[in-house]
């Protein structure tokens, strides 16, 4: 598969705006370099062909409610030439751009910060862009996140995830600001350190998808939303009064007490957030809060 666009004939494109000699020189130079590029491309193609045994086999889930032949979910197999450092996302992009442009998945930043490409790879929730093919057993099975409605191929509906996030009032709240618009709130380095991991969430949905409790209880806030609540509850800048309010939100019936510490969320989090730990800490705070008369 070459990226070359068939060249037009020379005559039809040249407009003479300069002395012929300079023009000739430049054209010759152009031809030489075009030939060089062609050669390089051919070399690359040849290399690819030679490396044929180093292709990687992907089995990719396919489904499209609108297209005949894709309305029944199925797996398609793609053979992608392996290159050093290749990620699952690279392989999917190659398959899409080379074999089947209808292959559909979300992706944007390529560097594990936008949270678009969480998928189920060989039975685990992973970010495709951060997962090296060389670490995986073949064939590599790529499926959409479990416990979410499939929109098409590897794209799932994220609405439920977003709703749970919004249910915990995921924004900073305080009753007191410093005087003056150029005066920041002070925060201890230790306190920032305490909330640091919780602020790294990229809303990818891997944790929610891996959680057995969330799978069985649609109202359960889930690890990402509870972690968001933690991020604010533990931030000293919000103040004690606000912390009470935060604890009330996560103490509800489908809040922290639903968590059974299976650690699935913590295992799959691509940002290494200790989600289970955060949930347990909130349970402790909630108990302390309710036993104030001691």
């Amino acid at each position, binding site marked *: 598969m070459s990226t070359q666009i068939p060249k037009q004939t020379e005559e039809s494109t040249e407009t003479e705006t300069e002395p012929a000699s300079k023009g000739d020189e430049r054209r010759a130079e152009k031809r030489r370099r075009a030939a060089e590029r062609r050669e390089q491309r051919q070399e690359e193609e040849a290399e690819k062909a030679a490396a044929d045994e180093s292709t990687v086999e992907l089995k990719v889930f396919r489904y499209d409610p609108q297209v005949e032949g894709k309305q029944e979910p199925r797996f398609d197999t793609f053979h992608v030439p392996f290159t050093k450092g290749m990620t699952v996302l690279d392989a999917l992009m190659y398959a899409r751009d080379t074999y089947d442009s209808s292959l559909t998945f979300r992706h944007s930043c390529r560097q594990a910060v936008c949270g678009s490409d969480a998928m189920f790879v060989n039975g685990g929730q992973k970010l495709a862009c951060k997962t090296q093919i060389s670490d995986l057993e073949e064939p590599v099975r790529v499926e959409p996140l479990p416990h979410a409605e499939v929109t098409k191929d590897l794209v799932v509906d994220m609405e439920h995830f977003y709703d749970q996030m*919004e249910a915990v009032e995921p924004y900073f709240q305080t009753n007191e600001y410093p005087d003056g618009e150029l005066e920041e709130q002070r925060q201890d380095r230790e306190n920032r350190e305490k909330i640091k991991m919780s602020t790294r969430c990229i809303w990818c949905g891997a944790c929610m998808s891996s959680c057995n409790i969330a799978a069985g209880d649609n109202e359960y806030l889930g690890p990402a939303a509870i972690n968001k609540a933690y991020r604010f509850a533990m931030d000293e800048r919000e103040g004690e009064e606000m912390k009470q309010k935060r604890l009330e939100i996560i103490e509800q019936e489908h809040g922290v007490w639903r968590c059974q510490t299976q650690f699935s969320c913590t295992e799959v989090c691509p940002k290494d957030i200790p989600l289970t730990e955060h949930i347990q800490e909130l349970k402790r705070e909630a108990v302390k809060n309710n036993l104030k008369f001691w």
Partner: protein
Amino acid sequence: MYEHDVVVVGAGGAGLRAAIAAQEAGADVAMVSKLHPVRSHTGAAEGGINAALRDADSWEDHAYDTMKGSDYLGDAPAVEALCQESPEEVIRLEHWGMPFSREDDGRVSQRPFGGLSFPRTTYAGAETGHQMLHTMYEQVVKRGITVYDEWHVMDLAVTDEDDPAERTCHGVVAYDIQSGEISGFQANDGVILATGGMGQVFDHTTNAVANTGDGVAMAYRAGVPMEDMEFIQFHPTTLPSTGVLISEGVRGEGGILYNSEGERFMFEHGYANNAGELASRDVVSRAELTEVNEGRGIEDEYVHLDMRHLGEERILDRLENILHLAEDFEGADGLTEPMPVKPGQHYAMGGIETNEFGETVIDGLYAAGECACASVHGANRLGGNALPELIVFGKRAGRHAAGEEMGEAEIETGRSGDWQPADYEFGVEVGETGGSGPAAADGGAVATDADSVLGAAVDRAQERVEELLSRKGRNHAEIRSAVQETMTANVNVFREEGRLEETLEDLREAREAYKDVAVSDPSRTFNTDLIHTIETRNILDIAEALTMGALAREEFRGAHWRKEHQERKDEDWLKHTLISWNDGEPELWYKPVVLEGENKTYEPKSRSY
């Protein structure tokens, strides 16, 4: 049809800030974005936000550094607005809960950055953009601002007068990626474009796959000039295999660049005798490539960035994210070995021509953030000046669009002031692409009311989508990669005439090929093939304007280096490049740079670090 007072296109840093500002000014606001807001590429920004917060610092010094960094192509009224308002905007972010890194006394930390005379870069570890993006999205949620996420804006709905300055923007047309529905979004008070970068014009870029310059191309086709498109920032430290960014914060904290001989070349080869690794980005990128070209690169491709001597504690405290990126995307351990780095496309200084309030020449159309060009950055942006640009100009555009009184602009847009046509013959026919045709209302009878303008724009978009889905033709992917390949090969850090001309020719061929483009996925559900095909048109328009500007500017200024013209020529070139789309023809013209600030004029000096 949806209707709001203000419609913001894009939901990254500038878009979110614009929406919040417009809402605070009393407008009913909606954001329309092809990505969910938290997926925006602002989240990938690492290093920090420049703001003169301390008594020993001043906005005047920040403005001086920015003008010098811009190689005197920044417009002073915009630069001064940035530097005056950045401190209050940074503190506002802190008040919204952004988890900045802290000093022992609990205040927001600041670190040194390239080209700055004072360590004024505030930061949150090496993930400043992520924290900023999420903090602002939280505020949007708090305020209940409407977000249409995963709607791809295809075109602007603009009236059809001959002179762009007479045109009015009534809204946008967007395609619902989830369902395939095409709808108009009427904006009664204004449309704000905040669509971010255009790095996908290049092969090796730090930018996301979504950064295809949609807003810039859309505004261009509606008659707004693109400004200073030839000025592309190549960031000196990106990972060689992927283009993933390694923050300037590494050098800010004391990281060192070495060549294959183990020389600290920034000093030892005299590229920047005072600032060394912390010279501005254009200087460092050229230095690295010069080392490689002279045979002192590693594997003939890259140099080493070493931060081991900073110690594990400091690295984990301030640069932890860098360890993960180097490990995950290059297999390098920043604690025990130097990291391989090379220049990569990072930021576009140019974009949609605006004044210091974000207004474009078209009535009711604004732009803010990386897609806009006010111009704050001129020929070269300083590290740490992009994030404050988002919040300062996002806010300004939002307020202005919502009808707030903000005084008289000093920067003129369009051909209203002292402009001059270009005197340059391109050897290649430029501008022609099949596709959506002119963006103004209906190419015929002049429609003036919002309904018919939007109606016509929606019809055109419907037709375009139908056409792409129903016909047989080429896949966009090969055209897109051909463009990226030629741009990366020839319109890079070092530029020479013959190769720029060659790229124009390659682009003409790519345009030709694009006439036969078709979408093979027939689905109306989440059709990314269709979205990418539409984006490719934007990439083509931008690549061409960029190359034209680079060919015509026969001098060396900031990020624009020319083999045949290796000096800055202030006599002829203290002016902005503008390219207008006129009936399918890109037209090149110029307008003078504004060096007069509030209390002083910034006299061009020779630039050394």
